[in-house]
Structure formats: C-alpha cells, structure tokens
C-alpha cells in the first residue's frame, strides 16, 4: 500500500550539492556529500533507494517531502527521518508562501485591509474578512450599528464558505488516498458554490466583499432563488460522499487511528476546529462565544470520539449538513434593508452598479456628487483617498473558521491605517500538531494525517 504514496523526491537536506550535475542526475542516482549520501528520487524507484540505503548500512534516512510535492497541500515542506517505513521524527518547514500581508496592511487604509486579508487563507476568504471587520468594528464601537441584513449575509456567506472549504479538504484528502472519485465530486460541488459567490460578489475567490461596517453591496436580483436551488442540489449531492466513503473499508483502513491526537494534545498544541472536536469536545466558537448572531440559529456541533483522521472526516461531512441548515435559516430570515452602517463617515460612499464596462459607481451616485452636491463629492474624495480614522486601542475578534479558531488582533493608533493586524490562523497553529500525529507512524500515514489537519499554506505563511 505504501509504494504509490511514498514521497517522490528527496533532496539533500543540509548537504551541499556536489555540483550542477545533480540536476541532470537520473532517477535514484546517488552522490556523496559531507552529510552522507544524497539520493535524488524522481519517480517510482523508491524501493531501489531503500534497498541501496539499507545496503549502505546508514542508520537513518532523512526524507524531504516538498515544498513542491503534490500531496503536501501547497508549498509545505515535511522533513521526515525514517527508519524503513516508520517515521521516527517529523518536522515542518514553512514560510515558502510568506507574502507579508500583515506588513502590507499597515500601508493601506482600513477598508483596503479586507482586500489583503481575504487572500490569507484563500479557501476561507469570508471568514478572514469577517474576523478582520469584526475587529475593526469593535475598535470603532459600531458593532450594534451593523445592519441585520449585513450580518445575516455574512453568516450566509461564511456557512457557504465552510461548505466549500470542507469540500476541498475532503476532495484533496481523498485524492491523496487515491480516491479520485471523491476528488471529482468535491470539486464539482465546490464549483456550484463558487458560482454562487460569483453571482453575489462578482468573484470566485478573494472577494473583499465584507467591509468594515457591513458589505460592499447588496445581493443581486435573483440571488435568493439561485441559493435555494443551490441548497437543493447540495442536499441531493452530500449523501454521495457518505455512500462513497463513510464505512468504505479501504477508506477506513487508511484513516482510522491515523493522525491520533487526544484532548490533552489538542489543548497543549492549541489545535482547534475539527481536530479538537474529533476528541469529543464540542468546542465551537459559534456556540461558546457567539458572534454575528449565531446564538439565534439552530444547528448542532458534531463531534467524534476517535481522535483520528476518520473522525475528522465524519465531522466535516456533518458540519456541511449543519451549514446547509444555517444557510437555509438565513434565507428564511432575510428582509430588505441596508447592508452598510448609516454613518456616512464610515460607509464607503460608492453605490455600485453594473454598467456596460463592468461593475462601477452607479450613475445616480456620480450624478449626485458631480452635478448637485459638492459636499458629497468632498466627502467621497476624503473617504476614498484618506479613509476613516479609528480610535486608538486594540481588539481581538475570533470566528470559527472551517479549520478552527481564526482570530484577528487589530491595533489602531488613531490613524487612517491599521497600526498592526495579526491573524491567528488555525492552519498555522494546527500544523504544529503534525509531528505529534506522525511520529511513530508509517510514511504513508503522514499524508493522511496532514490531510486531516487541512492546512492551507496561504493562511499558514500569510
């Protein structure tokens, strides 16, 4: 079972490459460095390498998986010390996708911040935006002024986002086990949700749709009907994952008791989300520390008591069903109204409308500021070029992202730009648990364990 899942490349970890010739070395070729023999493996010649390494009587092998490995979820580098098929030590190398988002934020105004944070964990855009905006709104002291419709739509988008994020997790996790059908199904259903995003925000990813004070704009006409159709389709599709995977003996054999982390381990390592809930603790910020009115929604927090990858898979499946319930309740409760705070010192002045050349300022708004009200023009200009000022202080806003507690620590110095924004990304924290989950297990189980953590490097590295 292990051979097809074995790592496909290994490079000298600390060894100095002997010369440029190593690039053209054939598969399984060996060269000697000061750190020992280094093998560059490119294909299905793993057995050969293991054999020759065993012959060399070297007591340990260090394998580098990644950062360009298809089953490490992006540019994650796993450094595994293995003894035969057993992983004796596992470490992560991260930072390959560090983009300096937190630093860049400090040079744009508060509203532009959402454009950056949406790109952190790119699979959970709406959660990043909501956490950031809740933090900014707390600093401004306008939590109670955000209109109900905006909050409901935030919840609706977040829960759709939970679905799309879990679908990617299940799809790629399945693919890494060789279950390509699950991959096809997962991406098929995610595509439907991305279509809904596109209808609502205009974009499939990186929306910057949730803004401090509310939303960038209201739902377009027909969106509610589209979402109801989508719910119907997803309701029909979700049982397919159950039929395919739940109880499937191959699936269970690969996932059960793999990536084990119990409650004490989760607490010590700060793991939250499905990893924590797979230990049986129903901790969910939506219930324990509700935000955006989650206390008024009717939904359950699924748990498992297996502490393993299979339990996390079942939790994700059930969470998707619960998210559908919440989306439905949102749709039922939606009432017409504003989606931005009434304070014109904070609300972005533009009223967007679809013109012949794409989305832009509505003609009415332009007519108003250019033709009738010079003050409106001045205010528009001031707000767009300067932004609004946020009173000095700090705030922490946390949301339950599909991966766990996503916290935004937002600091203001009273200016028009964030002084410091730090994201406590659940992927970053949960990925630390990789070593605890993998050491002592098989090489092939590393893939399953990492997939059950569901790290997204955009969020880990930021």
């Amino acid at each position: 079972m292990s051979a097809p899942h074995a790592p496909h490349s290994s490079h000298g970890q600390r060894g100095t490459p002997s010369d440029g010739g190593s690039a053209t070395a054939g598969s399984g070729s060996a060269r000697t460095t000061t750190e020992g023999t280094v093998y560059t493996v490119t294909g299905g010649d793993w057995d050969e390498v293991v054999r020759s390494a065993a012959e060399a009587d070297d007591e340990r092998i260090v394998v580098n998986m990644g950062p360009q490995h298809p089953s490490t979820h992006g540019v994650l580098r796993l450094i595994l010390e293995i003894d035969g098929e057993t992983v004796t030590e596992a470490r992560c190398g991260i930072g390959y996708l560090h983009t300096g988002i937190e630093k860049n934020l400090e040079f744009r105004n508060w509203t532009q911040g959402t454009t950056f944070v949406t790109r952190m964990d790119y699979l959970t855009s709406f959660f990043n935006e909501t956490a950031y905006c809740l933090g900014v709104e707390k600093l401004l002291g306008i939590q109670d002024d955000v209109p109900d419709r905006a909050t409901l739509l935030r919840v609706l988008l977040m829960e759709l986002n939970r679905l799309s994020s879990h679908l990617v997790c299940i799809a790629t996790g399945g693919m890494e086990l060789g279950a390509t059908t699950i991959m096809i199904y997962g991406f098929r259903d995610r595509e439907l949700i991305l279509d809904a995003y596109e209808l609502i925000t205009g974009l499939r990813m990186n929306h910057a749709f949730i803004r401090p004070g509310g939303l960038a704009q209201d739902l377009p006409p027909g969106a509610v009907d589209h979402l109801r159709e989508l719910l119907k389709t997803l309701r029909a599709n979700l049982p397919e994952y159950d039929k395919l995977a739940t109880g499937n003996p191959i699936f269970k054999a690969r996932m059960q008791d793999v990536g084990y982390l119990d409650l004490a381990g989760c607490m010590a390592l700060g793991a939250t989300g499905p990893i924590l809930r797979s230990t049986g603790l129903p901790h969910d910020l939506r219930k324990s520390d509700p935000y955006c009115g989650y206390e008024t929604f009717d939904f359950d927090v699924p748990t498992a008591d297996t502490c393993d990858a299979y339990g996390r898979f079942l939790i994700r499946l059930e969470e998707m069903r619960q998210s559908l319930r919440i989306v439905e309740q949102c749709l039922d409760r939606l009432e017409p109204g504003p989606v931005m705070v009434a304070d014109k010192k904070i609300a972005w002045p533009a009223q967007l409308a679809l013109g012949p050349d794409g989305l832009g300022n509505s003609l009415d708004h332009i007519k108003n500021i250019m033709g009738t009200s010079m003050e409106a023009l001045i205010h528009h200009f001031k707000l767009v070029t300067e932004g609004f000022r946020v009173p000095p202080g700090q705030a922490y806003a946390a949301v339950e992202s599909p991966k766990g507690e996503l916290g935004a620590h937002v600091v203001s110095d009273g200016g028009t730009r964030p002084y410091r924004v730090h994201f406590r990304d659940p992927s970053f924290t949960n990925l630390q648990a990789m070593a605890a989950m993998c050491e002592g297990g098989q090489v092939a189980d590393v893939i399953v364990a990492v997939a059950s953590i569901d790290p997204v490097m955009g969020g880990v590295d930021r």
Partner: protein
Amino acid sequence: MTDERRTGNGEQGAGGTDLPAARGDTGDVIRVQKGMFGANNGGDTTGYGGLVRTVSLPGASSRPYGGPGGVFDEIADELEGALEEQGLVPGNAIEKTVVDRGEITFHIAREHLVQVARTLRDDPALRFELCTGVSGVHFLGDQGRELHAVYHLRSLTHGRLIRLEVSAPDADPHVPSLVEVYPTNDWHERETYDFFGLIFDGHPALTRIMMPDDWQGFPQRKDYPLGGIPVEYKGAQIPAPDQRRSYS
C-alpha cells in the same frame, strides 16, 4: 472619526449595557500628531499646521472592571488571590489592568510572565487552557516599552477570553518564553521573533520561521521599510506604498 470619539478618557468602557469601567486619564503615549489632517509631506496650507497633540492608548482602569456579569472583576480577583498565595505581590506582577471595548488586558511585568501564565492555566477558578498565540506590536513612540508581546488566553471551562500584554524596550528585546506552559506558542514565538526581533528566553529553538534563515533585520518593526518600486499607471507615476501620502 471625530475627536470626541477618540480622546481616551471617556465613557467608552466595557461596552454595551455592561457597567462602564472607569479609565485613568493617561495611557501610553504612542505618537505625537502634528497638524489637523495628518498629511506630513508637502506644505500645510490649512492653518492648522501648528496643532500638536499626543495620541495615547487607553489607560489603566480602576475597579470595578465590569464585563458581562462582572466577570472581569472575578478574573482579576482570582488571579490576584492566586498570585498572593504563591507569595507574589499582585501589584508587582500586574503592572496595570486595562478594560477597553469589552476586553480586559493585564499588563504583566516580563519577569513574572511565566508564573502568571502558569497560574492562569492551572488555577481551577481561572483555567485558561488555550493560548491563541502571541502577536507582536512595535510602538516606536512608546519610549522604553517599544516592543509589546500580546497573548490571548481562552478558557474553555469558563468560556472567557483575556489578554496579557508584556513589553520590552528596543534596547533589551527579551521576554520569557511561554512554551513550557503553552507548547502551542512554539511557532508563534518563532514568528514574533522572526518579525519583531523579540527574543523569547527559554524557547527550545528560537529560529526564523517565515523569512529565510539568513535574513537581515526584522521586517514588521515599524522602522523597517516596506519596500517597493514606483509603478506607472495610466501615464502617471504611482509611488511605492510606503512612499504614498498618509493621513495618520
């Protein structure tokens, strides 16, 4: 945002309908604002150019701290009691307590950080099991306390959230490591070291985590430039983001 909303001595307390926490009138001064509108390059023709005022963070609060159902007072009482039991004068460990925007912050003297964190984790009445990591903040204008390390602790048992804040001067950027109390802080402290140069004494392997190992400087310090080059857009030169006019 108008000025009366900004001045730090006001009524903004625990927020909402909860008991507002009274606030001392002096917080840490973090910068001095000159002029009215924040523009600091180019000539000031507004007539407000001579205006000088300081911007300070919310200052220390006095009892009662409030919070939902008076929970902040409860936490503070329990913490002070537990520290006293260990023979520590609470006033020495807790430099000040700030209640602002419905959140409570304990400013801890850095030499007592580990003991305070361990107490917060282990005391049955406190039980802050989950640390959500550390966030660094660099206040260039906060003389002698430039580097701040901010920890958010969550109690799943009691459903509470508090913030600890520790500061260190730029000249001596040392803060004790919390890894032995909260192992989750391993990567978080490496990240804060990487970006702010805060040295967490006692960390098992304090190395860079995001930036390359041989990187010079600490990129998220305020005196570290963002970098970037001017770009041409529709015929005009747009300066790099950190060269553009700022209004704060």
